[in-house]
């Protein structure tokens, strides 16, 4: 029987994979994809607890997050394209304009 604990472990695994992706990868597109993984880990977490509690609010939140993730992906890709046009790169370690 698959219990809430399994879902949480899956969620934790996805979160770690996402975080490691965000921190270690140079390509901003991959970083965006990793952020999607983190968001989906949160979604699994919410749905799992929603099932455990027998209420529907968690699922509603998950749907909001999916919507939000779509919007964020659109905005993020727009920023990347704009940046690429200016610097001809999508590598995060070359995005060091803030460095003094």
């Amino acid at each position, binding site marked *: 029987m698959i219990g809430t604990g399994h879902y949480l472990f899956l969620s934790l695994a996805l979160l770690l994979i996402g*975080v490691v992706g*965000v*921190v*270690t*990868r*140079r390509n901003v597109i991959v*970083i965006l994809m990793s952020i999607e993984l983190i968001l989906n880990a949160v979604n699994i977490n919410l749905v799992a607890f929603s099932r455990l509690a027998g209420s529907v609010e968690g699922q509603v939140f998950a749907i909001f997050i999916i919507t939000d993730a779509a919007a964020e992906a659109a905005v993020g890709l727009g920023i990347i394209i704009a940046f690429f046009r200016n610097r001809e790169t999508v590598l*995060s*370690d070359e*995005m*060091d*304009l*803030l*460095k*003094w």
Partner: protein
Amino acid sequence: MPTQAMPSEFFLAHIWLVPLFPLAASAVMLFFGKKLSNSAVNVFCVGSVLLSMVLGFGAIFQLIARPAAQRLVEFALFNWIPAGPMHTTSGHLVNFNAQWGYLFDPLTAVMVGIVTGVGFLIHVYSMGYMAHEGGYYRFFGYLNLFMFSMLTLVLANNILMMFVGWEGVGLCSYLLIGFYFLKKSATDAGKKAFIVNRIGDTGFLLGIFLLVGTLGTLNFTAIRGAILAGNFAVGDAALTAIALLLFVGATGKSAQIPLYVWLPDAMEGPTPVSALIHAATMVTAGVYMLVRTNAIFEMAPRALTVIAVVGAVTAFYAATMGVLQNDIKKVLAYSTISQLGYMFLACGVGAFGAGIFHLMTHAFFKGLLFLGAGSVIHAMSGEQDMQKMGALGGKIRTTYLTMFAATLAIAGIPPFAGFFSKDEILAHAFQRSHALWFVGWITAGMTAFYMFRLLFLTFLGKSRVPHEVEHHIHESPSNMTVPLIILALLSVVGGWIGLGGRFEAFLDPVVRARAPLVISDCMEYIPTPGSQSAEQIRAEQLQADQGYQRCLDEASAARTRSQAVNQAFGGPILEEATEVPLMIASVAIALVGIGLAWFLYIKRTDLPDKIAAGLGGLYRFVYNKYYVDQIYDALFVNRAKDLGLTLGAFDRTFIDGLFVNGSGVVTRAISVISIYWDKWIIDGSVNFAAMAVRVLSIPVRWLQTGRVSSYAGFIVLGVLLLIGFYLHAAGYTLANLRP
């Protein structure tokens, strides 16, 4: 005496408008003239002088319409310099005050008539003469400014306002002599005129100061009143000093020895300027000033003697130089100096009326002579040397005939104007001193000689005109010849108004000393009865009686004195018996002069050069104007330059070197110290602060990599640390992660 104008006397009441028209026109010219066409300039400038002339002549006729005793209008427009109380040298407390006021009496009337009348004719003439010159508006602007100044000078009711006009005409004279400002000789001549006039003006100004200090008033009527009141004895030292100082001013403006040197050079100006300023009006300002203040001079017989001698010597001396000049305008310039000498001679012998009479006739014929000379120069395409003229009479007939009339007038041939005025002067001189008369008489002969020499060399004899100029010779346009004709008429008939002493009778109220105090002036000593005791009234009455008696005594003493003055200078009317032989004598010597000129310049034209060669050194001495310019240069001009150079060297080494440059060096040294303070202490502390921050920031600088991913890593690390912290706080350990 009513000094106010009646309501019916429009022109007399508005006499102050006369100088304002030319002032307005000149302002328009000098501010906007560049944009105006020549015809617009004509409308403004000649029109304004025409308006002045109409107003001026209206006022003259209204003045003549009054009874002789009431021919005086005086009013002030405003209080010009209300300076307040002051002590005179005699210790009286007076309220010193200079008005901007106008005085119109027979003397002013004559001067206004000359200035506006001759001035208008010369303006009309200038329209033709200056038509092809650059700076047309500038010329008329200056000329109108001159008209304003000259009219202010003659209309002023006090000597300070007169001085304003006096300086104004000097300025305009300077501007107009230097009118062709690209020509160095013209600008030099302008400067010379201005500077020489300054010397005279210094004397004039000192005279004014002394006058104020002595009499406590500037007003002409008050000066006259104060002197005629009998407060001064004949020959009073202060009055003599004033008279001499004023005369110094007059020698500058009216080109008398020793300050005459500027007038011949002033011929560098355009010829209408020479006619208006340096012959007819401005140079006579000195004579006018003397006559205007004649009350002072009558009290100073020694000063009058000086004036008479200077005038006579100048008349003779200038005539000798005029004889040898070849420049047509220079001859006229020396002639002007000589004739001005006659006027001063007249003033010096107390014949102020005769001086003004000669001033008037001289304005007519000398103005005409200059305008005629201008017409000749115009015809000769700018040539002024009489040696290159000759036989012009047939070609420029109007000019020739009008100049002929003027020459007869200046030579003193009856019935031309100059005869009457010159004769009157000589008659008065004869009465005073036979020597003065003799100098004047000889000068009259020389005048006739050099004027006819001019006439013969220019208009008669053989033509010495260069061929290329010859066929350009043409008569001047009608706006130049009509003024010539009018002035010629005046030169013929202008003297007739002096017949029977009418002219001098007209001026009499101004120039003759009158019995001053009348009995009614003493009435103030009669006390008005008040409510006092009988004794007090008696005491007061006694005191008043004494005052009244003293007043009457003074009045009668003053009357006696003024009669003495009258006798000394005015004298009884000259007897026919002396006057007629004098007339014959002066006409005779004039004819001798004319005959000599005819003999030398028509009959035996080879003789003048031989005579010149025969005289040798003397000829060169006079031809070079007695080397006076060179002597003045050596004595005064170069000494002044030396003084300037010395002062300049003093300035450079001592003032500039020690004080200015010295303080510069000191400041510089101080600033070097200041620079070190700034650089090391002020800036150093700022830089030290920055460096300290920089050093302190080294340990944390590596945190700011600028890479987004490393920041993200920091965030994750931080979150993990926080989670760990809270878990630890909540009692979890690695061992019991499961609660």
